[in-house]
């Protein structure tokens, strides 16, 4: 009887402990990674909105983001093999353009039905800064890294704009 009780107690304790640890990890990540980024974004957006830079920037961006052609152009430029590794780190560029476009959508200047191709257009460079490290994490040989870096970069020139087209096709009927 006591053995059974001990076993139940241990099992419950393990589950509760795991859940508690999961909560702690979640709060840690939020405080360490998410809130600092929100603070940074809030500052940038505040200045952009108040100084009027936002309007100029938004006009340029929404001109680009308001049509499929513009989004394709955006994805082609961001996905250029020379630019993509520079624009990749921390997805900072993708996040800033994302927030700017989101603000435009929220103000009604940009049609929400284009949100899906826009999500793909701001992100053809994802991970392009990280290819050697990512491959090293997968225990790749140096020769593989030498071949893999240009292979991924060139492949993105095709799949970056293609993803925008796929996003556009799949946004049929979205927020219509």
């Amino acid at each position, binding site marked *: 009887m006591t053995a059974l009780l001990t076993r139940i107690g241990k099992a419950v304790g393990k589950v509760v402990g795991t859940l508690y640890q999961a909560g702690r990890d979640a709060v840690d990540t939020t405080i360490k990674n998410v809130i600092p980024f929100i603070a940074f974004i809030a500052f940038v957006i505040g200045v952009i909105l108040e100084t009027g830079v936002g309007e100029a920037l938004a006009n340029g961006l929404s001109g680009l983001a308001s049509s499929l052609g513009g989004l394709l152009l955006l994805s082609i430029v961001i996905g250029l093999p020379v630019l993509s590794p520079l624009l990749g780190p921390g997805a900072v560029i993708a996040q800033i353009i994302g927030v700017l476009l989101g603000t435009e959508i929220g103000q009604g200047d940009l049609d929400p039905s284009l949100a899906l191709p826009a999500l793909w257009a701001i992100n053809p460079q994802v991970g392009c800064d990280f290819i050697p490290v990512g491959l090293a994490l997968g*225990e790749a040989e140096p020769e593989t890294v030498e071949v893999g870096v240009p292979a991924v970069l060139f492949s993105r020139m095709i799949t970056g704009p293609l993803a925008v087209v*796929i996003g556009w096709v799949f946004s049929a009927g979205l*927020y219509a």
Partner: protein
Amino acid sequence: MFDALAAAAEEFIGWFQRGAEVFTGLVVGIIPLLIVLLTAVNALIALIGPERVNKFGEWAGREGFIYTPIRYLIWPVISVFVLTNPMAYTNGQFLPEKYKPAFYDSAVSFVHPPLGIFPHVNPGEFFVWGGILAGIDALGLSPTPLAVRYLITGLIVIYIRGLVTEWMTRIMWGRQTAESAA
């Protein structure tokens, strides 16, 4: 003179007040749900145990086109879901060298599309999705249809990226060997 100074000061503090409004909006609108979701998925993964996942990887590296959906769709999805960014890329180790760049391309392209439903995969880069999300929220529309479509198109795109990069790697490898032979 003092009026001008006061006006300048007001303008200056106005920037930050607007920033503070944006900050409150993002924290109240996004953080609570994010924390609860993160907790649930973290617990689930801890209970399953990442070591059970590894066996699957060895199976994914086989030759033949029918294994490509396993290599560039199922394996990257499991890796990103369980190990999250950036540890997901370690799962490339179970694949032959010639497939590693393509696997990396697939996996790294999947660290944002699930953010609308499973933000635990990459909370540090949440605003790739969260920026657009804030705009949809501001219009009073439900973000779920967009989140689902982002996830589905993500699956399609990572599979295509895997195939294209595998092909590109083969071309580059041929050129590399030809150069070193010459």
